[in-house]
């Protein structure tokens, strides 16, 4: 036999739009405190709150769902916005009695706010944090995202993948894309063997009639 690498068809880098509604945010131990506090926004000591979380943690989605429900204001990527702008928005929220949600990577002092009046205001605002994804959330994310693209993922695969995957959102999403690309290459459903091969960094051989029987 030859020792050359296997010949494989690559898949087009297609991207699927993600629809958005309340049911799209998956609640788990990683975010349920934040979700609960957003629900009880009328009990906040001030009209503004700070939401932090890793990239791709769903913080912007949560924010958009929040303002859609409450009619409040959202400032995403706060580190990259003008501090005066945020300061005025904070004051406006108090005046109009309308909630303001500020989304940042990290809370002060890690978020270095130069404007003293804004710094003190942000420190006085409730801080809601989305934590790193837990195992059930990772499983639900994989199942949901791939399910939307028409790829059912068996419980067997989920149980195998979740303990082996890095617990951070970007890693999980990368994984979802990898699994998706692999299945697209093969133009068939996902199998545990494929998933094992991807995890081991192997090339996924192309569509193979024998392999297709192992769906269940």
């Amino acid at each position: 036999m030859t020792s050359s690498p296997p010949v494989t068809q690559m898949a087009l880098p297609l991207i699927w739009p993600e629809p958005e509604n309340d049911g799209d945010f998956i609640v788990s131990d990683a975010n349920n405190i934040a979700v609960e506090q957003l629900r009880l926004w009328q009990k906040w000591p001030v009209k503004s709150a700070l939401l932090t979380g890793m990239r791709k943690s769903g913080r912007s989605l949560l924010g958009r769902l929040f303002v859609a429900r409450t009619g409040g204001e959202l400032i995403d990527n706060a580190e990259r916005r003008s501090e005066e702008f945020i300061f005025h928005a904070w004051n406006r929220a108090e005046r109009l009695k309308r909630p303001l949600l500020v989304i940042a990577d990290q809370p002060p002092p890690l978020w270095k706010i130069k404007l003293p009046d804004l710094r003190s205001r942000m420190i006085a605002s409730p801080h809601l944090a989305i934590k790193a994804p837990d195992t059930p959330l990772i499983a639900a994310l994989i199942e949901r995202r791939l399910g939307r693209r028409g790829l059912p993922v068996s419980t067997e695969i989920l149980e195998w993948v979740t303990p082996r995957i890095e617990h951070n959102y970007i890693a999980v999403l990368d994984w979802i894309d990898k699994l998706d690309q692999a299945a697209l290459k093969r133009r068939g459903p996902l199998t545990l063997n494929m998933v094992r091969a991807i995890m081991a960094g192997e090339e996924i051989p192309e569509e193979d009639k024998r392999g297709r029987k192992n769906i269940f």
Partner: protein
Amino acid sequence: MSKLLGHDTAIKIFRHAEESGRLHHAWLLTGAKGVGKRFFADQAAAWLLANAVNPDVKKNVEPLSLDITGHNPTLSLIKAGSHPDLLRLERLFRDSKEQERARNITVDQVRSIQKLFSTTPALSFRRVVIIDSIDDLERSAANALLKNLEEPPAGTIFFLISHAAGRLLPTIRSRCHLLPFHLLEDNLVEHILKHNLPDISDEECASLVKISQGSPGYGLKFAGLDMAELDNAIENLVKTGDRDFLLRSKLAQSLSLKSAQSRYEAFLERAPTRIAAEAHHLRGEKLAQAIHLWEKARQLGNEAVSFSLDPQATVFTLAGFLARLAPTHK
């Protein structure tokens, strides 16, 4: 169709949910076999599909009924099996034997749900899937169904029938709205039997009411099988103990005839039930013995069909269990 009797509460809950616009997308209908779950699912499906085409349909239906009377195009299509937005899953008939159904609902059948969902509905926004029963799903089929139950397309309603909800996967149960169906009073059972069997004699009707034990559909299965005679034979076994093996030989021979297939199946169900009934009157060691017999009889009754055991030998053994209930038996 006609009105479903004895389940006003279920009808009320369902109609209220539909009319208030808060219809849960998956309904788990639970209760004993033959109590009316399938009848309900069929009527509720027709109700949803017909009203989705023409909202005036419900105006002509009594408040505690789902029975659409008169000519309706949705009903014609459902009856012909050609309604494009309705899918019914049940155990398929085996290719080889037309009368016999497969042991399970297969994963391929469950995949046909995805096929239904992959195109838009044809006649209205509504789609209905009935699974009769969810207890028949093979393991992989149950897993495949979970995905469909999780996020069905808008307007889709599932009716899942279960005769043994306790054994269901919790992940399926948790996705459904539970709708329990209770056993009916004997007089209601009698009324339903007579409605379905207008020519039935009072004697046979009484015998079927006894057999039904609150599930008229269960009793109906034994209609026309001369259950009085079969029950007589069972009573004789229990009373005399059949010391010379004559009764059981005769019974085994008569039930093993090809023409007696239905009576044979009736016997497989009746024998364990009779032992259970006897156990109610017993105490102590006798009771323990009866329970042991009942377990063995039930197992044999189940395996006889699924493993196609020899009818004559099966009846002979089961009749032996019955005979051992006799007081004269040591």
